[in-house]
């Protein structure tokens, strides 16, 4: 039942707004709204009850194991939430003069430094509001860098075919053409193909390492050399930073610019879709181009750098400062971890993934890439099961929901047919990993003995399998109330 269907004329959460409507008659008639907006009219209790019950229809980290590859669904410490929501932070107007905003700015400045240290970059801007916007900032900086040197012919961005969709989409938004580089069966980038592809038109290469295939790119130094020698820059998509935190730094691998999804590696919550943060870090030569604002410290005072300070900046990406509430949560999380904790993150994330990979193999699943270390995630391909029993990765996913586990990422990366990309993260206990593998094994048996169970899944959730085709064909995108 929709909140609109609880509606009854004239009802409202009365203590939440002024009792009377002040006169607005001095506004010209034609600028005023004619009818009231058709919003639901409910009591506060009805709203609380409705949304509390809706919330219970979600799977979430706080309620289920959620091994969603590439997404790093780790525990979001509740303290990060409660401390980031202290009134001193919540009530701060974004344009508060810096002098009255020192507590917040200090956190941001330290966050920049910690990110520099953890990634091996020289400077960071916290402005981008998600990974994709970080990519935008990064590619725009690459563009600005070349242009600043009069190197105007570099109109192409290279991306491996395993890359996330945001990579090519971003390159195009920044005005570049995209060229795909193939991946070898062992998960490494095809170095020969890369060599063929680079040239004076190459602005840069966007790479995720460990890659979206769940393996570490062993030829990273050679790759960096090829691209740099061609005059291009190296972009690091930080979605998988969790795998290597404190173990190897993108800056030391030769990357010139990176974004870090703070909502993955640094545990800010995904919130059912966002908000996130795609903080961008750069090597020395790209510092002048960083997006605004960044925070600096001079004379013991923190302040925002402005366009006057940074005339070469690619500019602003938002009205204010990105997503401060997210940044505060990441800051708090990083202070929890500290330098030792960061290493622990990578170690246990990797241990958990490799353990699950070994278990998967032992239980008869086909690994997308066999014989290599998993990073913090790994891939099972169900192409055999699909061929033999006509069950898809989607069917496996839906059946997992019935057994109380969120499904892994399906059908990504696109290279691997019928794939499940599994990322346990470091926050899960061995019992959860084993429970999940047991469920997966059970489903494999069901696929053999009674595939109907899979096709009919899920059965235990608020709804059964939903008709996505109908949704896209008979568009119903908003409830239209009859007034």
């Amino acid at each position, binding site marked *: 039942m929709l909140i609109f269907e609880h509606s009854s004329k004239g009802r409202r959460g009365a203590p939440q707004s002024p009792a009377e409507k002040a006169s607005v008659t001095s506004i010209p008639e034609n600028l005023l709204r004619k009818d009231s907006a058709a919003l639901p009219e409910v009591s506060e209790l009805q709203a609380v009850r409705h949304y509390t019950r809706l919330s219970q229809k979600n799977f979430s980290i706080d309620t289920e194991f959620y091994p969603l590859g590439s997404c790093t669904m780790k525990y979001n410490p509740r303290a990060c939430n409660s401390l980031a929501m202290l009134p001193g932070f919540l009530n701060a107007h974004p344009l508060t003069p810096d002098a009255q905003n020192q507590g917040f700015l200090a956190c941001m400045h330290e966050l920049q430094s910690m990110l520099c240290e953890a990634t091996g970059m020289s400077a960071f801007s916290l402005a981008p509001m998600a990974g994709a916007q970080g990519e935008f900032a990064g590619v725009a900086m690459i563009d600005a860098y070349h242009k600043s040197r009069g190197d105007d012919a570099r109109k192409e961005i290279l991306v491996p075919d395993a890359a996330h969709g945001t990579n090519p989409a971003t390159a195009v938004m920044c005005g570049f053409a995209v060229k795909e580089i193939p991946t070898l069966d062992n998960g490494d980038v095809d170095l020969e193909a890369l060599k063929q592809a680079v040239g004076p038109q190459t602005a840069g290469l966007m790479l995720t390492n460990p890659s979206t295939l769940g393996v570490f790119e062993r030829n990273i130094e050679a790759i960096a050399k090829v691209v740099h020698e061609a005059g291009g820059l190296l972009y690091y998509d930080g979605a998988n930073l969790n795998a290597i935190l404190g173990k190897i730094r993108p800056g030391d691998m030769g990357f010139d610019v990176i974004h870090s999804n703070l909502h993955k590696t640094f545990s800010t919550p995904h919130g059912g879709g966002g908000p996130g943060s795609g903080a961008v870090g750069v090597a020395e030569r790209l510092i002048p181009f960083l997006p605004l604002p960044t925070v600096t410290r001079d004379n013991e005072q923190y302040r925002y750098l402005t366009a006057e300070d940074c005339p070469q900046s690619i500019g602003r990406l938002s009205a204010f400062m990105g997503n401060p509430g997210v940044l505060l949560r990441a800051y708090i999380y990083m202070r929890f971890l500290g330098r030792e904790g960061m290493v622990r993150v990578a170690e246990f994330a990797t241990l958990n993934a490799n353990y699950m990979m070994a278990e998967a193999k032992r239980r008869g699943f086909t690994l997308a890439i066999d014989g*290599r270390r998993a990073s913090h995630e790994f891939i099972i391909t169900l192409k055999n099961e699909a061929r033999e029993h006509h069950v898809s990765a989607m069917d496996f996913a839906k059946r997992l929901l019935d057994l109380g586990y969120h499904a892994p990422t399906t059908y990504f990366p696109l290279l691997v047919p019928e794939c499940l990309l599994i990322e346990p993260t470091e926050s899960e206990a061995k019992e959860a990993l084993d429970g999940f593998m047991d469920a997966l094994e059970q489903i494999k048996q069901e696929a053999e003995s009674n595939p109907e169970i899979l096709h009919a899944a899920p059965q235990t959730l608020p709804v059964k399998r939903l008709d996505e085709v109908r949704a896209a064909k008979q568009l119903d995108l908003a409830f239209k109330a009859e007034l």
Partner: protein
Amino acid sequence: MLDSIGVDSIDDLFDEIPAHLRAGVLEAVPHGMNEMDISRLMRERASQNSTALCFLGAGAYEHHIPSAVWEITTRGEFYSAYTPYQAEASQGTLQLTYEYQSMMTALTAMDVSNASMYDGASSLAEAILMAVRANRKSKSRKILIPTTVNPVYRKTAHTIVKGQQIELVDVPYDHAAGTVTLEQVKQIQAQEGGDITALVLQQPNFFGCLEDVDAITDWAHENNILVIAVINPLTMAVLNPPGNWGVADTNPGADIACGDGQPLGAPMSAGGPYYGLLCCKQALVRQMPGRIVGRTVDLDDKEGFVLTLQAREQHIRRSKATSNICTNQGLVVTASTIYMAIQGAQGLENTAAACFANNNKLVEKLTAIDGVKKVFAGSHFHETVLQLDKSSGRPASEVLAALMDKGVLGGFDLSLDYPELGSAILVCATEMRNDDDIEIYAKALQEVLNMSAATAAQLAESA
């Protein structure tokens, strides 16, 4: 676990990483802390922030937020869920987002809303990109933007669209009214050669003035120009919403509406997270960037909700996607939806009207002070530009700094973005500012203006 894997130590798992590249100790990262110490640290940090009375708006507004809103929003099931790709296990977020889309279209009188963009400014940029894709009749990629549109929105749009050879053309405002006139718009159109892809209109505009949206919208449509509305959604409870702009019978209403959702339940929070709202006419739906939730049925014909039209998005369409956006601002949308449900239309109307009334009270009190005057004629919603008499010889920045010392966050200094206005500030009083607060501001401003310029400068320095 190591046994199952067949290694001796965790470190073995990293043996594919070239040894000489391995990181050393992260010296610049402090040692880990426990929650007790972090709590203490963060409380100290939070308490260093200002507690001044806020009369500053300029794109972010202090409104009352019912306690229920964030108590429910931060429930683990909303807070720690991912994007609802597994629809059956995400009906909470999906239904809520569908309700959000329904509320937002009701508020804006538009046909379609997406599930959110990052913020108001970037949402304007996406609206422009969308308009360029959608307006197949126009080739110019020129967008008219009045200078009454929030300056940081214009800057952000520029950052984001400049890679795609899109030109943003300023339209100057009328200095008496603080709004753009149809004549000005026509003149710029002519100057630019006639082919204009889209036109942006902010209502209320950055000065708090009300644009003549009907006439300009109708004219734009007559000239094959798409209209992009930038709105403050709260004020739409009272003002004519973009879906109804224009009086022409054919093709009424703005084509795209964007804006920042912050006034609907998001705390000011030093700048975010807020969210960008983005709505459009039905015909433009396939050009819409970002996620969209649709209502459908399950195997038993029971109602349910899914992400739909994903073929527009980067994870499917890759380099041909309508946008690169992926993670959006879902949790803030969650809060905003609950906020709107609790308020209802009546609550929003009363709140918006209270802002209007309080701002008028504030302006009345402040302009009663010698040397303070209202710059633009006409109605103001929410915010008003005040000019401080030049005879005092004091720039607005100094006056604002002196007010800050008295615990009053007095407004936005317009002199950087609008030097032609002289020593001018943009003030704002929402429903949160009561008569006592307004009195405090008036008294403080009176005192500050009475101070000798010299003393003031000294004070500002030491602040």
